C-alpha cells in the first residue's frame, strides 16, 4: 500500500492488516515511532474532527504536523495550479493528508507527488479512513466482521460515510438494513455494487421496529436543507430520531455508531445505555489513523 485513496483499492487482506495493526497499537503491542516525520494536513474544506484525529494520531507517535485549512491560505488564488501547490508541500513533508470538496483530488494528489497520500474525504466520493475506523469499531464490538446484520439509518443518499462503509463491508459476509426517507435512499450504483458481490439488503423508512435483529445501527444526520419543502422535513424528522424506549428489545450485542457530529438524531438519554458506542468510535479513529500512517511510512 503506497497511498490510501479509496476503499475500492484495498483488498480484504490489506483491510484486515490495517485493523490488526490498529489493534496492536491500541493494546500497546506496537509503538510506531515517527520522530522527525512531518504530516502535511491539507484541509481545503473545514473538518475539525477529522483534522484533530489525524493531528492526534501523528503526535501520539512522536511525529508532527503542518496544517493548511481552507483554500484561502494557498497560492491557488495567485494562479498557482493545484499540482504545483501539492508538489511544493511534498518538499516539506513526509506524508500528505488531504480533504477537499472536489471529488478525485486525493487520487490526483497521489499521482503528482512522490510521498504517500491519505484521502481524508473528497467531496461526496470517499472517506476511507472513516470507513476503516468504522470497521475497526464493528470488529471490536462484535469480535468479527462476518455474518453480521448492519443497519444504516438517515441520509443514505448524500452521506459519503455510509457509502464508504457499505463498500468496505461488502468484502465481508454481511446483511444490510437501509433506513431512510424514500428520497434519501442509498444510491442505485451502490446497491448495484452490493448485488454484484451477493450482499443482500432490505430498505425501510423508519427506525422503530426495524432494529431488533440488528448487530449494529449506524446513524447519520438528516439535514433539513435536503428537503425542498420544510413541512416534509417536519413530517419525517421523528422517524429518524433514536430514543431509549426503542432499545427495549434489541440484541444484547447491539451497538449504536455515529460518525459525529450528532445534532438530535440520537437522543442524549441513549448515551448512558450500554448500546451507545459513538464516542469510543471516535477514539478508535485515532488508533486506526495511527495504523494507516505508520504503515504508509514503513514504521510499523
Amino acid at each position, binding site marked *: 500500500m503506497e497511498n490510501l485513496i479509496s476503499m475500492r483499492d484495498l483488498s480484504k487482506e490489506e483491510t484486515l492488516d490495517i485493523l490488526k495493526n490498529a489493534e496492536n497499537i491500541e493494546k500497546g503491542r506496537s509503538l510506531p515511532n515517527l520522530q522527525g516525520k512531518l504530516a502535511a494536513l491539507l484541509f481545503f474544506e473545514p473538518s475539525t474532527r477529522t483534522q484533530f484525529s489525524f493531528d492526534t494520531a501523528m503526535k501520539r507517535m512522536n511525529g508532527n504536523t503542518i496544517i493548511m485549512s481552507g483554500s484561502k491560505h494557498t497560492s491557488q488564488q495567485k494562479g498557482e495550479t493545484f499540482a504545483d501547490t501539492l508538489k511544493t508541500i511534498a518538499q516539506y513533508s513526509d506524508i500528505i493528508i488531504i480533504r477537499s470538496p*472536489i*471529488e478525485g483530488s486525493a487520487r490526483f494528489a497521489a499521482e503528482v507527488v512522490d510521498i504517500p497520500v491519505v484521502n481524508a474525504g473528497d467531496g461526496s466520493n470517499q472517506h476511507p479512513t472513516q470507513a476503516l475506523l468504522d470497521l475497526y469499531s464493528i470488529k471490536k464490538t462484535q469480535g468479527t466482521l462476518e455474518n453480521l446484520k448492519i443497519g444504516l439509518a438517515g441520509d443514505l443518499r448524500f452521506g459519503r460515510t455510509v457509502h464508504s462503509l457499505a463498500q468496505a463491508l461488502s468484502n465481508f459476509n454481511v446483511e444490510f438494513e437501509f433506513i431512510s426517507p424514500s428520497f434519501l435512499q442509498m444510491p442505485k450504483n451502490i446497491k448495484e455494487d452490493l448485488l454484484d458481490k451477493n450482499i443482500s439488503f432490505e430498505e425501510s423508512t423508519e427506525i422503530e421496529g426495524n432494529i431488533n435483529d440488528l448487530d449494529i445501527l449506524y446513524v447519520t444526520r438528516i439535514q433539513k436543507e435536503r428537503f425542498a419543502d420544510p413541512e416534509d422535513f417536519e413530517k419525517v424528522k421523528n422517524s429518524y430520531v433514536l430514543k431509549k424506549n426503542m432499545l427495549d428489545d434489541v440484541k444484547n450485542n447491539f451497538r449504536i455508531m455515529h460518525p459525529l457530529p450528532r445534532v438530535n438524531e440520537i437522543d442524549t438519554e441513549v448515551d448512558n445505555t450500554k448500546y451507545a458506542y459513538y464516542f469510543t468510535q471516535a477514539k478508535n479513529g485515532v488508533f486506526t489513523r495511527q495504523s494507516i500512517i505508520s504503515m504508509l511510512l514503513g514504521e510499523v
Partner: protein
Amino acid sequence: MEKQIKVNAIKNGTVIDHIAAGKALRVIDILNLKGNSSVMIGMNLHSNKIGKKDIIKIENRELSANEVNSISLIAPESKLIIIKNFKVISKSKLQIPDKLDHLIVCPNPNCITNLEKVKTKFKVVKKSPIVVRCLYCEKKYAADDVKVHI
C-alpha cells in the same frame, strides 16, 4: 446491388458498418473529418443481421486508436472494414478496451477532471451494456450518457 446504389463504394479508406440504426451521426460527431476525405453516410438501411443499420464510408482515411476506442464506446456492435483498391483488406469487430484514457468527458461537474487540468481516465466496468467508471470521482456512467473528445 441495392446497397451500392444507396452508398457508393470507396476505392481506399475505412467503412464503419453495422452501426446500430440512428447512431451514425453520433459517430460522425466524434471523428475528426475536417480534412479532404469524402464521407458517405447511410442511415436506416436494411440489414439481415440487425434489421436496420447505419453505415459510414470515409475515403482515404484510416482511424486512429482513439477514434476506434470512441466508436467502440458509442457503437460497440459496429464493424470496421479497411478498403484498398476497392478490396476488403481487413474486417474486424470492435473490441471494447478495459481502460479509456483521455477520451471521455466526466459528466460529474465536481470531478477534478472538470476543475483542474487533469486528463480523464475511465475503467470499463461492464461491457454489455457498456458502463464506465471515472478513476478520479469513481462515479459510474452508461456509455450513452458520456461525451467523448478526441
